């Protein structure tokens, strides 16, 4: 009951701040755009010719392929990767304030005087934010999927795995945003730190390694590279994009990334709750 009240308050705050409405509007525009695009002959043609996208069984009716992947699958992979990035990025931005607004002077004193264990507030805010993003992602993904299915007459249900995987990826990243939000009490700091970490792990380190390999022929082993490779194991959401691609391509998938991200989320959330329960206001 208390937990539900905190989640409900979080969702209300999301509605009041127009974050939910904003994301809903952007999603709707995206879906309308998709309706328009799929009506275009050229696109229909490109996606479906010379044969229909998803018929894999027919021997004489090979769908058009690039690097062994149908154009339609490629589109779904591109769309899901894009949605993954955007959802994490935009989602973190619009929900980061949930954790820090809780700790504002005048608000926190009231909350801490109620008979509620401190950690419930952080957990409730977290769950509230994840639910909001789940709703948005589900709306957008389902919308796009329906539009594509109806327009093209070709359904790829595997794309729907995106709803789950993207929300999980967000939940993972948001656990880090929550942690830094609690520690710094500033949503901007939290976002910048998490963003910097992901740019480091996802972009700078791979680039440095690539250059290293070019120059030295083989990757050098050292403390720095050990830290670099270690770092990517503690960043949530790793491997979830691959999971979506493989699912779309009907390739064998490993569910390890799911467990890793879920585990890291729980870990970071637990640390956030602990840090929050030791904080003075």
């Amino acid at each position, binding site marked *: *009951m*208390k937990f*539900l*009240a*905190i989640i409900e*308050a979080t969702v*209300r*705050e999301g509605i*009041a701040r127009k974050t939910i409405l904003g994301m809903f509007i952007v999603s709707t525009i995206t879906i309308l755009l998709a309706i328009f695009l799929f009506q275009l002959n050229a696109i229909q043609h490109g996606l479906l010719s010379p044969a229909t996208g998803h018929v894999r069984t027919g021997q004489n009716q090979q769908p058009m392929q690039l690097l062994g992947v149908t154009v339609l699958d490629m589109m779904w992979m591109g769309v899901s990767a894009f949605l993954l990035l955007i959802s994490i990025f935009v989602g973190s931005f619009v929900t980061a304030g949930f954790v820090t607004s809780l700790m*504002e*002077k*005048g*608000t*926190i*004193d*009231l*909350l*801490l*005087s*109620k*008979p*509620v*264990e401190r950690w419930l507030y952080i957990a409730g805010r977290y769950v509230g934010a994840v639910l909001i993003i789940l709703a948005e992602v589900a709306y957008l993904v389902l919308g796009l999927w329906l539009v594509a299915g109806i327009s093209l007459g070709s359904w790829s249900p595997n794309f729907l795995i995106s709803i789950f995987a993207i929300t999980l990826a967000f939940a993972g990243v948001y656990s880090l945003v929550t942690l830094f939000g609690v520690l710094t009490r500033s949503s901007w700091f939290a976002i910048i730190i998490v963003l910097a970490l992901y740019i480091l792990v996802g972009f700078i380190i791979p680039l440095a390694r690539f250059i290293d390999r070019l120059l030295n022929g083989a990757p050098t082993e050292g403390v720095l590279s050990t830290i670099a490779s270690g770092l990517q194991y503690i960043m949530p959401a790793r491997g979830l994009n691959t999971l979506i691609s493989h699912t779309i391509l009907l390739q064998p998938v490993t569910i390890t990334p799911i467990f890793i991200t879920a585990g890291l989320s729980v870990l970071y959330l637990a640390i956030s709750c602990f840090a929050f329960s030791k904080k*003075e*206001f």
Partner: protein
Amino acid sequence: MDLAIASNNIVKTYGRGSKAVHALRGVSLSVQEGEIYGLLGKNGAGKTTFIKCMLGIVFLNSGEGSLLGYPFGSVHAKEQLGYLPENHRYPLYLTGEQTLAYFGKLSGIPKAALGERIDRTLKIVGMAEWRTTKVRKYSKGMMQRLGLAQALINDPKLILLDEPTDGVDPVGRKEIREVLIRLKNEGKTIFLNSHLLSEVERISDRVAIMDHGTIVKQGSIDALTRTDHVYELTVTNTRPELLTALGSSLLRTNGSLLEISCETPEMLNSVMDTIRASGGVIESMVPKKSSLEDVFVDLIKGSAVTHD
């Protein structure tokens, strides 16, 4: 009677090293169940810090305390108390009743009972007609009443109020005072922080005066404001010789009013003899009472030197 609040040598220091602020330096006080207890002190004395210690919003450096029999900060104690913080803020997009519903749920009030509790509480604080107005549109005094309402939503045994009448107009203040007295008559314990001395004087059973993190005086209003051994005499027909004859026992004169200090009843009698012998006529004599404000200012003046 049981103690609603008991604190023993509470020490709270914010920060460390050269930046350390010694907000509480060993505060011991006890509040009986059913009384209104006022904690007085000037800005920065440590009043809010003391409440925050009780609620576990900040943690003690040393000392111990109990609220309704539970240790400071205990969730069980919070089930039976209400708190009105200073500078309290509510989500602006909620209405008054939505705000109360939210805090009511956090207080663990079952859904079935919530509506009735909200109605009652709004009525107590005189906010029934504003229940569906958004908090955004509330005036400062209305906010204060809403704050009081959320503190009362769970029908608490103990109510902690930090400057309850801050920003409230005189009529509203009187109403809040009446609410507090009514709550006291229902058997609730009220602990309030204030620097509005006259107000505290009017409703409190006992007060403590805090300065620089220590309690410099504690007791019933009556005991605090009674000035021992000082009497005010109205005397007519006084002659200049009389004033010299009274010597050091005369503290002040103001027209026919003489302020006399006498350690013993015998001394008082001999002073009266002296006055009569000089031809003065004593019209009245009362033991002097100072206002809480006098006591407060005297105490704070006296102790300010030792800490700064």
